[in-house]
């Protein structure tokens, strides 16, 4: 009896795992996995970056080229409301 019950539970979990990409639950994971196939938007180490544009804390648009000639550090952080 215990063996059958355990098999049913584990089997259901296995089916859920295999079917995840096609369920509503799997939307975010599927999108995340697809990101692996996207071409990289920016260059590799040693290559010049494209003229990226950002919005600063005052709402003004800032271009990477605005900092040309100055040492610049760009950091990316995940916001709380992602």
């Amino acid at each position, binding site marked *: 009896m215990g063996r059958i019950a355990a098999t049913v539970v584990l089997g259901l*979990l296995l089916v859920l795992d295999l079917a995840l990409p096609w369920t509503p639950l799997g939307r975010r*994971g599927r999108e995340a*996995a697809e990101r692996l196939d996207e071409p990289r938007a920016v260059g590799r180490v040693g290559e010049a970056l494209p003229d990226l544009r950002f919005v600063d804390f005052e709402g003004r648009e800032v271009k990477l080229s605005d900092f040309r000639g100055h040492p610049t550090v760009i950091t990316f952080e995940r916001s709380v409301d992602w």
Partner: protein
Amino acid sequence: MARSYSLLCRTCGVLLLLGGVGFVLSSFRALAPGAESVTPFPMGPNGLYFFAFTGCALVGWGGALFAAPAGAAGRRLGTTTALALALMALYRMAVWVMGDVWWLGELPRIEAALFLLIALAFVWLRPARASSEAS
């Protein structure tokens, strides 16, 4: 069947033991001054703390599986191992759903399927209750 179960316990035991020893050694190595970058993936001191804890727990789990006795105790060890594997699979599925480790692609789901199959093997290969109590 008891022979297959013993082989499964020993194989999984050795793998967990090796993984645990690797985790513990990596943790000690990362404690060396200026050696923060040697860990397999970036993690802060808190992550390292739990990494070391996991390594120690794996050493215990792997050792117990490797030395799994015949009889009821060995049977119960298979049951708890199957439960732990199912929990590990569930966590990997949740991580894949959340997309937090997107750079791993489908690996969390593949690992989850593998863990569930091994858990099923533990459930089906463990000796029947009567025969394990007799031995």
